[in-house]
């Protein structure tokens, strides 16, 4: 298990940030989803042992987060959401300092800082003052300083906030590489569903401090029995009209038709319509929920 929460409650005065939260999360790439104020940041701070919870217990990487905070933080790399910098340092000094704060020797930290800056693509800017970095560079700098000590768990809090598409893609590629190819567990907090879907295989959905859903993304994206994606060789519009005449609800998504069959009907209806029209079906598969649909339906149920 990557981490476990057992009945965790955390309040700030009248505000309940985490409400009797129970979690068992396996190792791997974990997405943490939730609207603003859902408790994501408090959950991350709880994992790091930075907040004292009102109730409950839990373990992170097998360590009790109420008693072994420093040990946990040694095994975890964290890139906070906000813009935060060690002032008056150049890039390589910034990352090396982060390593030293974690307990690395100065020489090790410097060597490792060069390696991680090369890895995140900031090798050319390593001797520039960090205050002069762009938003994207600062995010990559935070990532480099989070992995400088080679943590077992990397926590990225809204890492793509305010970034241009190219910079966002770079961060996602780095996160994916670290988790898929380098065996590092990842907790990726974001409210951008495509980002989570691009990197993570498991997701936790929070709202109002409560757990709404958790599980493998592939399992959460359920198969619809009466909705299908269809692509044909010929005229898409003509075939759509034929299906509508047969009682289906049809919508066009580029080259694909999304077809919802009438109740009691089977996919045979689509095959029959194609045969009648002399059309070739090139693609036919049951439709799956998107992560967005999963997220929205979780919120609605809450």
């Amino acid at each position, binding site marked *: 298990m990557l981490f476990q929460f057992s009945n965790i409650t955390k309040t700030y005065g009248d505000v309940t940030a985490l409400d009797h939260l129970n979690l068992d999360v396996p190792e791997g790439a974990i997405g943490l989803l939730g609207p603003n104020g859902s408790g994501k940041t408090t959950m991350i701070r709880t994992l790091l042992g930075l907040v004292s919870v009102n109730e409950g217990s839990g373990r992170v990487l097998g360590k009790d987060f109420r008693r072994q905070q420093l040990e946990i933080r040694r095994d975890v790399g964290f890139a906070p959401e906000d813009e935060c910098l060690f002032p008056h340092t150049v890039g390589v000094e910034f990352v090396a*300092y982060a390593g030293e704060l974690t307990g690395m020797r100065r020489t090790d930290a410097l060597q490792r800082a060069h390696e991680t800056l090369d890895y995140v693509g900031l090798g050319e800017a390593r001797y520039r003052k960090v205050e002069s970095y762009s938003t994207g560079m600062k995010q990559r700098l935070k990532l480099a300083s989070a992995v400088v000590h080679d943590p077992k768990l990397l926590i990225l809090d809204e890492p793509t906030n305010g970034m241009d598409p190219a910079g966002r893609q770079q961060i996602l590629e780095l996160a994916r590489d670290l988790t898929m190819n380098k065996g590092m567990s990842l907790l990726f907090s974001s409210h951008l569903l495509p980002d989570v879907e691009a990197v993570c295989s498991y997701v936790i959905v929070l709202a109002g401090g409560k757990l709404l859903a958790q599980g493998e993304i592939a399992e959460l994206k359920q198969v619809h029995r009466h909705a299908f994606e269809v692509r044909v060789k010929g005229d898409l519009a003509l075939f759509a009209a034929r299906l509508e005449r047969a009682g289906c609800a049809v919508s066009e998504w580029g080259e694909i038709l999304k077809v919802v069959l009438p109740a009691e009907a089977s996919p045979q209806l689509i095959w029959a319509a194609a045969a009648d029209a002399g059309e070739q079906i090139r693609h036919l598969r049951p439709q799956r929920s998107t992560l967005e649909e999963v997220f929205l339906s979780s919120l609605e149920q809450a």
Partner: protein
Amino acid sequence: MPVFDQGYQHWSGTLSGHAWRWLAITRHGIRVALGNRWLKLALFVAWLPAIALAAVVCFWGLLEQQSALIQSLLPMLGFLDREMLLDPRAYRMEVWTLSYGYFMLTELRLAMVLILLVGPNLISQDLRYNALPLYLSRPLRRIDYFLGKWGVIVSFVGAVTVLPAIAAYVLGILFSLDVAIIKQTFPLLLASVCYGLIIAGSAGTLILALSALSRSSRYVAMFWLAVWIGSGVVSGVLLGIEHEARRHASRRLERGGSGGVTAPDVESTRADWRPLVSYTANLARVGEEMLGTPEAWDKLAKLRPGAERDMTRPRTSSAPTPWTWSAGVLAALFGLSVWILHRSVKSLDRLK
């Protein structure tokens, strides 16, 4: 440039324990501060009094041995009493004490300049650049953070007070060629080191607290100037007003023709609270007591005839502020500083 020029490599080194983690913050703070050339210049200037201190104690060692090296310089020592020149060993402790006293007093002023150059950035910049989450999300406690920042000030102030005091002491012993000197003067070394640490500790905590009050280092520098120079000026003005009032009262009584002990005379024997307003005066007063300079002045003053005696003892000529009062003020400032730090530099256990 492609992102993956060089792949990610795992690291298999070992991490140190938590006990000395604050040292990383101190080392980093010193490295950053030394990037300021004005600070380097101030450090250089602050070491000059140390050379003077070392020169005096070494010279006195040679004088004790009646060394031929300094015979040509003896005519220049006319300002010293004949008895001191005839038996320098008997006045060794007083000469050393006053030398260390003047040295520490000078370094106290120079330390204020050093702190002005180093201190304001320490916490205010971290607040401005929101660096606290970066610190506290690592295996550090808040106390480690404070200790690390405090260590920066203590290092610089210690470098111009404690280190020169020790270096001068070692040189003085080497030049005296007398083992007995260690037994006699070691308490002075101990007092100097402790006093240096008190300056560093008190001023370090105070500047950290001021630095935690604002995100702008300029404002913090102004706060520091107000504490250092402003409090001294206010104290001076208060003393001046009180002195004038006493003079007027004295004239009135003289005109009234009352004999014997006057009210202002009684006042003048009482301890005065006005020097307590000055931060550096409090540090200086505690230093005087720790190093024992009033006693040294008293002994040297006895060598002079009555009229000159008071001029020889400028610091003991009026009723001094009790050193315990000054220590109390410093302790209160320390407590206040710790409270400010506790309130201003919060943990992450709060809502954003």
